[in-house]
C-alpha cells in the first residue's frame, strides 16, 4: 500500500516540475551520473555479490569462502582479496553466484579477449560494450570513469569557486588599487593559453587525481571571479549594506553575511556551466594522456585508446563520447534552468 502511494507522490512531483518547465530528463541524468559515480565499485566488479551454491567449491579447494566477496573486497585492501576467478568457476558450474551489473573489474586484463566487439547475447559473461586493446571491459571502465570524471570536475569547480569568490569579492568590495591589481591578475590568467598552462603544470607534477583537480580548478576561476566582482560592486552600495556598515559591521561580516548571499543565484548558474566545462577539460586532458594516472579509467582515457584503432573499435569511440556529451548537455540544461530561475 505504501510503495504505490510514494510512487504516485513522485509522479505528481515530476508532473508539476514538468508543467513548471523544468528539464526533468536532465535531473534524471544527473541522478543517474551521481548514482553511477558513487556506486561505481559495486556496479562493476569481478567479485560476485552473492554466492548461493558453494558446497562443492569449498570441498574441492579447501578455502573458506565468504558469502559475498564483493562486499568484502570493498572493505579489504587489494592484497587481502583472494585471487579467485569466480567467473570461470561459475561458467564451469562449480559454484552458483550472483554478479552485479558488470561482472568485470575495470583494471583486470584478459589479453586473449582484446578488442572484442560489444555482445548482448550468447554466453553468461559477455562484454556489453566490448573490450579495449588490453582486454579490459569497456563498460566497467566507463562506469569507473564516470566516478573519476565527476569527482575531478566537481572538486575542481569547488576549488575554482573558492578562489573565484575570494578574489572577486576582494576586488569588488575594496575597489581602487586592490581592484586594479586583481584585475591585472585575472587578465594574466585569461591571456595565458589555458591548455598550455595546464600542460605545463601537469608536466611538473606527478599525474594523480588530486593534482588534476587542483590544476583544473586553478585555471578555471577567472569567470567566477569576474562575475563575483561585478555582483559585489552592484550590491555593495545597496541601502541594506550601507546600513549594516552604519551599524559598525566589519568588512568581512558585510562581505560574507550581507553581500555574498546576494550573488548566490548568478553564481550557481556559472557553476553549473563550469562543471560541464570541467568535464570537457578533464576528458580532453585524459585524451592527451596527461589526465588521470595510468591504470585509472576515465572517459577521455577510453577515447585515447580508441584513437589508435580508428577503423575497428567503434565501441570505444561511441560510448565514452556519448557519456561526455550527455554530461555536458545535462549540466548545460541545469545551468539554463538556474538562469531562468534567477533572471533579473
Amino acid at each position, binding site marked *: 500500500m505504501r510503495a504505490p502511494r510514494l510512487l504516485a507522490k513522485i509522479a505528481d512531483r515530476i508532473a508539476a516540475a514538468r508543467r513548471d518547465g523544468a528539464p526533468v530528463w536532465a535531473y534524471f541524468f544527473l541522478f543517474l551520473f551521481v548514482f553511477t559515480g558513487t556506486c561505481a565499485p559495486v556496479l562493476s566488479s569481478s567479485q560476485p555479490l552473492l554466492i548461493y551454491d558453494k558446497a562443492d567449491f569449498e570441498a574441492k579447494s579447501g578455502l573458506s569462502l565468504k558469502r559475498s566477496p564483493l562486499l568484502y573486497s570493498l572493505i579489504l585492501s587489494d592484497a587481502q582479496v583472494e585471487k579467485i576467478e569466480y567467473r570461470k568457476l561459475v561458467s564451469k558450474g562449480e559454484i552458483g553466484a550472483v554478479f552485479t551489473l558488470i561482472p568485470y573489474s575495470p583494471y583486470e586484463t584478459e589479453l586473449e579477449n582484446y578488442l572484442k566487439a560489444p555482445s548482448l547475447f550468447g554466453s553468461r559473461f559477455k562484454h556489453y560494450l566490448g573490450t579495449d586493446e588490453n582486454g579490459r571491459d569497456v563498460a566497467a571502465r566507463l562506469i569507473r570513469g564516470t566516478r573519476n570524471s565527476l569527482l575531478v570536475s566537481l572538486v575542481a569547480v569547488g576549488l575554482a569557486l573558492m578562489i573565484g569568490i575570494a578574489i572577486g569579492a576582494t576586488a569588488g568590495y575594496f575597489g581602487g588599487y586592490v581592484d586594479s591589481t586583481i584585475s591585472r591578475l585575472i587578465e594574466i590568467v585569461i*591571456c595565458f593559453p589555458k591548455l598550455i598552462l595546464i600542460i605545463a603544470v601537469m608536466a611538473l607534477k606527478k599525474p594523480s587525481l588530486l593534482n588534476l583537480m587542483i590544476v583544473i580548478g586553478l585555471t578555471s576561476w577567472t569567470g567566477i571571479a569576474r562575475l563575483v566582482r561585478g555582483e559585489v560592486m552592484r550590491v555593495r552600495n545597496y541601502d541594506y549594506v550601507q546600513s549594516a556598515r552604519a551599524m559598525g559591521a566589519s568588512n568581512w561580516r558585510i562581505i560574507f553575511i550581507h553581500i555574498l548571499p546576494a550573488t548566490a543565484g548568478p553564481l550557481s548558474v556559472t557553476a553549473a556551466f563550469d562543471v560541464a566545462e570541467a568535464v570537457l577539460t578533464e576528458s*580532453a586532458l585524459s*585524451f592527451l594522456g596527461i589526465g588521470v594516472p595510468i591504470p585509472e579509467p576515465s572517459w577521455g582515457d577510453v577515447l585515447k585508446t580508441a*584513437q589508435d584503432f*580508428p577503423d575497428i573499435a567503434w565501441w570505444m*569511440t561511441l560510448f565514452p*563520447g556519448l557519456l561526455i556529451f550527455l554530461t555536458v548537455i545535462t549540466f548545460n540544461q541545469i545551468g539554463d534552468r538556474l538562469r531562468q530561475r534567477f533572471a533579473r
Partner: protein
Amino acid sequence: MIPTFVGIITITFFLIKLRPDALTTASMGPDGMKESSGLDEFQTKMRAYYGLDQPLHVQYLKLWKNILTLDFSESRIDHRPVLTKIGEALPITLFFNLITVFIVYSISIPLGVYMALHDGARREHLIATVLYILYALPGFWVALMVLKYFGSAEYLDMFPLSGLVSPYFSKLTWYQQVADFLWHLVLPVFVMVYGSFAFLSRYMKSSFLEALRSDYVRTAKAKGLNKATVIYVHALRNSVIPLVTLLGGLLPSLIGGSVILERIFSIPGMGKLAYDSFYANDDTVIIAVVSISSVLTMLGIFLSDIAYMAVDPRIRYGMQNEKA
C-alpha cells in the same frame, strides 16, 4: 597591457625553471634522461652554453633582453631559429582560424536572424534543439568520429586522415594543389566550425530578439518604414554589436591554436608546436610561443574593445570598469 605581459612572461619563466633539470636533459637524447648523481662534463658544458649556470635573476633579465630585442635564439631540439619555427606554425593556425571565424559568422548571423524572426515556431524549435545538441558535443570526440567515418578506409574513404597536403603535392599542377589543400581542410575546419557556430547562432538570436523588442525598432515600425528596412537596417546593425565583443573572447583559442584538434589532425600549427616543445623541454620555443600568443591575444582583446566602442557610441573607455 604591459603589466599583464610582464606577468605572463614571469609565470612562464618560473614554470620552466621549476621543472627538474629540464635544460640539460633536453638536448642530449635518450642517454641524457637517465638519473645521474651529478653533472658530467658534457652537461656542464651545455649549461654554460645556454647560460644556465648563471644565477636566476641574471637569466631572468637576459630573457627580457632577448624578448625586447626580439631575439629568441634557436630551438634546443633541432637548432633551428625559434622565429622560423613560429613563422611556419603561426600562419597555419591563423589561416585555419580565420576561415573558421568567417564561416561561423557568415552562417550564424543569418541563422540567428531567421530563428529570431520565427521565434516560437516549430522549425525554430527544431533548429534550436539541434544547435543545443551541437554545442554540447565535445570537439575532440567529433574529430575522432569524422575521421573514423569519413577518413578511414573501412567506411567512407572521402577525406585524408591527417596533414595539410598529400605526399605527392609537389608533383601536382597549381589548381590541383589548391584542390588538394582544400580537400585536406574540410574535416578540421568542419570540426572547428560546428561548436562555435551553434553557440553564436543562439547568441545572435537572443541579441536580435532584444533589438526587435527595443524602442527604436518600434519607432521605426510606427513611422511606417517597410519591414525589410526595419529588420535589416535598424535591428540587425545593433544586434551585431555583442558579436563583436565575442570575437575578442574567441581570440585566445584562435591564436594559441587548439592543441587537441591540431594533434588529432596532425596540423603543424601553434598548438602542436607548444605541446611538442613542452614535452621536449624546448624552453626557448616555449617562451617564444607563450609570449607571442599572449601578445596577440591581448592585442585582439584590445582591438575588439576599440571596435566595440566604434560601433556603440554609448560606451566610452573610462566607463568600462563600471560596466564589467
